[in-house]
């Protein structure tokens, strides 16, 4: 598999592993992301500021005052040549989601109708989907999570909403997402989590990371309210939702 190096001025370049979305290609992206991180910790690469993984490429940002493209690119090439592990995924994350309240799931009935399913079947398919976090972007903590059951694929709404409430769980195309802030949005809202994907009071303000495996856990309105209260108060035990592989 060939790799392309794309110039992003004199402070970054992008390593592109392919021109399609696939778990294999993204696995290589995440593996290089991890490999550069390890090489920096080991002092094998200096001058790199950070790496930004996306579906099929990794952007490497650097300080042109302490290194150069001519110095860095061969080092990155060497890391790729050394062989990247097939899957750098390290965490398995569970997100509680309440599908039962019409206020939380205003599009559930329409999604069911358009996919020829009952609402319960839509929920079951969402719960069974093997999700993986591919990219965070657009706003802090907003994750593009692919792996949605093919039976639920739908284009975005033709009329986006002006205001989607924070923590809404939504689907569109082959993905699901969770809104970290109240914002405009064109995805189909099928539930809500009591979690905040971005909480500036936390030491790690962003909950999800690229590479996370993710699954939803169905909760009722009572559990939702209890967890929401703990999240709001800052007493919720987030570590109970994360398992290392």
């Amino acid at each position: 598999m060939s790799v392309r190096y794309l110039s992003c001025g004199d402070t970054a370049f992008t390593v592109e592993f392919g021109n399609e979305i696939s778990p294999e290609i993204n696995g290589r992206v995440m593996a290089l992301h991890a490999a550069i991180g390890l090489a920096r910790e080991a002092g094998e690469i200096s001058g790199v500021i950070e790496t930004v993984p996306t579906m099929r490429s990794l952007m490497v940002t650097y300080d042109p005052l302490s290194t150069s493209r001519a110095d860095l690119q061969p080092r990155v090439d060497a890391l790729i040549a050394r062989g990247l592990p097939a899957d750098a995924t390290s965490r398995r994350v569970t997100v509680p989601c309440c599908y039962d309240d019409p206020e939380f799931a205003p599009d559930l009935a329409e999604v069911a109708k358009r996919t020829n399913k009952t609402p319960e079947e839509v929920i079951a398919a969402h719960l069974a989907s093997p999700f993986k976090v591919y990219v965070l972007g657009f706003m802090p903590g907003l994750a593009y999570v692919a792996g949605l059951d093919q039976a639920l694929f739908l284009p975005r709404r033709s009329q986006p909403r002006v205001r989607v409430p924070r923590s809404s769980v939504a689907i569109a195309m082959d993905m699901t997402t969770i809104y970290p802030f109240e914002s405009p949005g064109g995805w189909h809202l099928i539930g809500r989590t009591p979690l905040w994907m971005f909480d500036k009071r936390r030491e790690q303000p962003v909950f999800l990371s690229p590479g996370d495996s993710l699954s939803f856990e169905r909760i009722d309105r009572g559990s939702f309210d209890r967890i929401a209260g703990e999240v709001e108060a800052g007493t919720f035990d987030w570590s109970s939702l994360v398992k290392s592989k």
Partner: protein
Amino acid sequence: MSAGLKVVRAGLFETLQDLGRTGFMALGMPTAGAMDRIGLGLANALAGNPANTAGLEIGVMGPDLLVEADSVRIGLVGPLSPALIDGPDAAPKPLDSDRSHLLKRGQILRVGMIEGSSTAYLAVAGGFDLPAFMGSLSTYSRAGIGGFDGRKLAAGDLLPLATLGAPAGNERRLAQPFDYGSGPLRVVWGPQDDYFSDEGRRTFIESEYRVSKEADRMGIRFEGPTIAHARPVDQGGADIISDGIAPGAIQVPGAGLPIVLLADRQTVGGYPKIATVASVDLPRLGRLLPGQTVRFAAITVDEAEALRRDQEARLQRAIAGFVVARPPGGIDLARLYEENLIDGVVFESPWNVTSKPSSAEGSTK
């Protein structure tokens, strides 16, 4: 005892910025940071601070700041028309920009209007006593984080200072205005220059573009000739699988007009980016005003890196070449001595007396 600068009148858009919040783009966190790193760097150097200390980025019109500290040294950089107000009924006395000033308790600094640039900077010696968020004080107002309460300043805000009084020392000024360069903005082709036709690339490099009114910390939309994509836009010619966005990236959506993405840009995006402004010219972008026109000229990555290193060396020379500044209404002692205009006269400037450390001054809280 605490020390602070109180906003008695807000300007239009002041935020605290350092050199940016790096390390969290993978989590979707924009870097933010100063739009003009040279302006912030000079202001910090005038105030005696390390380069990455957070300062106030001033947009269009600055605030009025009341000194609630024994004294504070500030560095002001940019085409400002500041003034000092000594008391409730005192008339504003004009101050120079591009230099440091020692301000005393009860005085009001009127930062004033900026002419000919969209940004100017105010640094305070010792910096602001505010908590860093994810390692940085840069304000990212869209998410309400960093800086002062994650937002632009408002009347009544009290900006806490890290030191109770100004350290001893002379006031200093730039020997001459920093040369940001002129001529076309230098760009490096890519990452997606292959998404544009030869004609489209020629249009981009041969045309003049005007800064539209849609210009802010996130980016600048330009007006001018439309740039042709290589493939029809309705067949995905202006869509890529989203990838990372570097500072200065020039994305061209289907409509064909370029958008340069700056400090508050989103971390990833799905429009093709024809070129990226070289880092040497990012400070010029950070100073552009609506209505101003630019051209673009392509250079290589190697050339861009060399230009940036040369600019950094010039910046360090400018800082090493600061000269002692005359206090407002006072006498430039250093210049007088240099020019042998006085000889053997015992003369002590009241400004230098007041800048000597007292018991409380110069100490950190």
